[in-house]
């Protein structure tokens, strides 16, 4: 991969990668750092990464880096975000489905959130998602199913408050 090919990949995938990171991490500066790190890794490994698989490579790096960052943040904030809490009056703050959905998405486990993001935003197949996240195709599918069910449950609960 030469610099021209690399630049083409930057143009093609940087926005999607940034969106993926931003949906995960919520902080723009952190998301930018993740994108930069992913592309740096790609450049370092440019002689071994097949350009056709560069997008998967970038998302895999971004995912791993995102998870590390989220864990660090959780540790620092001593927060527990993987379990649902019963909706409280905060539900009244949600004005529309999109915001409710984003809120619900942030409450999913890392793996469930990422399989859904990769599936819905990037249109990846189960196998491609599995390659990126280093899990089996069956695990991808079941995590999408469970994640969607949790989103559906959350949406239902929030609807009761709206």
């Amino acid at each position, binding site marked *: 991969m*030469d*610099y021209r090919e*690399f*630049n083409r990949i*930057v*143009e093609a995938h*940087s*926005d*999607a*990668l*940034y*969106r993926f990171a*931003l949906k995960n991490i919520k902080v723009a500066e952190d998301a*930018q750092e993740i*994108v*930069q790190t992913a*592309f740096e890794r790609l*450049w370092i490994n440019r002689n071994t990464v097949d350009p056709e698989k560069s997008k998967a490579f970038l998302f895999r790096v971004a995912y791993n880096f995102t998870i590390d960052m989220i864990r660090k943040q959780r540790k620092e904030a001593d927060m527990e975000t993987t379990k649902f809490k019963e909706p409280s009056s905060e539900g009244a703050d949600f004005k529309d*489905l999109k915001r409710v*959905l984003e809120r619900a*998405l942030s409450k999913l486990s890392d793996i469930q959130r990422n399989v*859904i*993001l990769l599936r*819905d*935003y990037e249109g990846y197949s189960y196998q491609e998602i599995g390659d990126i996240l280093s899990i089996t195709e069956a695990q991808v599918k079941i995590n*999408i*199913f469970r994640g*969607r*069910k949790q*989103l*559906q*449950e959350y*949406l*239902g*609960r929030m*609807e*009761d408050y709206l």
Partner: protein
Amino acid sequence: MMNTQNNIPEEIQWQIFELLEGNLTAEESEKTLHLIESNSDYQTFYHELSLTYLKPEPAEYPNKSVLLKSSPSTFKIWRNLSILVSSAAAIAMLMLYKTETPLKTTHSISTSPQKTASVNHAHSTESTVNITAPALIKHLKKANPETLQKDTQPAASSEVATQFAKVDVPNNKPFRVIRIMEDPSNEFTSPSGEINPDNSTNTIDPEVQIVYTGFDRNASDASETSQTEFLLDIAENLRYGRLPKMKLVPRRRQNHLIPQVDMLVGTDTRFIQTTLIQ
């Protein structure tokens, strides 16, 4: 809206999920839709689950320009090299005019059919790549067919010794030494022990010699160009009519391969044209 999934068997939930994921055949989809229509809980679950599909939102990475790579650092060196070689050629042509030597303005190209490229890809710290003129010219013609003109003069390339500045090529005259190096005092040691002209200890009039280290202290892509590509790039940029022999000596420094080329050009070459790599 209410949660209904507790009232729905998991296999039905899976079936509705598969429908929304697009994993069912047309026939299976139709059956599932009929099933959903038959039960209000199924309808609610189907509707709620369909809301969980995210719609892609536009996002723009703000620092894209930072990620983009410029052309390899060799470009800058090539540019300087080209300027220097052009200057050298101009000076040489002036000198030749003064001495009333017939000046040819076209390339003198070896057309010896027997000569073929012999490339030893070097992965060790030191090795040699020899590319004879016909192979280079073949590549040149492929790259820029309109800029090369054949000359019917016979080739003498293989007869020219590889040690520069020690060869007495018939009709050759001292030309000019051009050397572009990152660090002349430390970088270059001639592979065969020749004197480094940059150290001002070389008392022998040289042929045209270009020693190019191809290494930029601030860049990490010195190893990016393979040796063969490097040679061909040189050939493409410096359109010599005659290239008796090129010798490439890769060296390792800070884990980077440093291509290093000694070129010996007979003074039958009257015209050197340079072109920058884009």
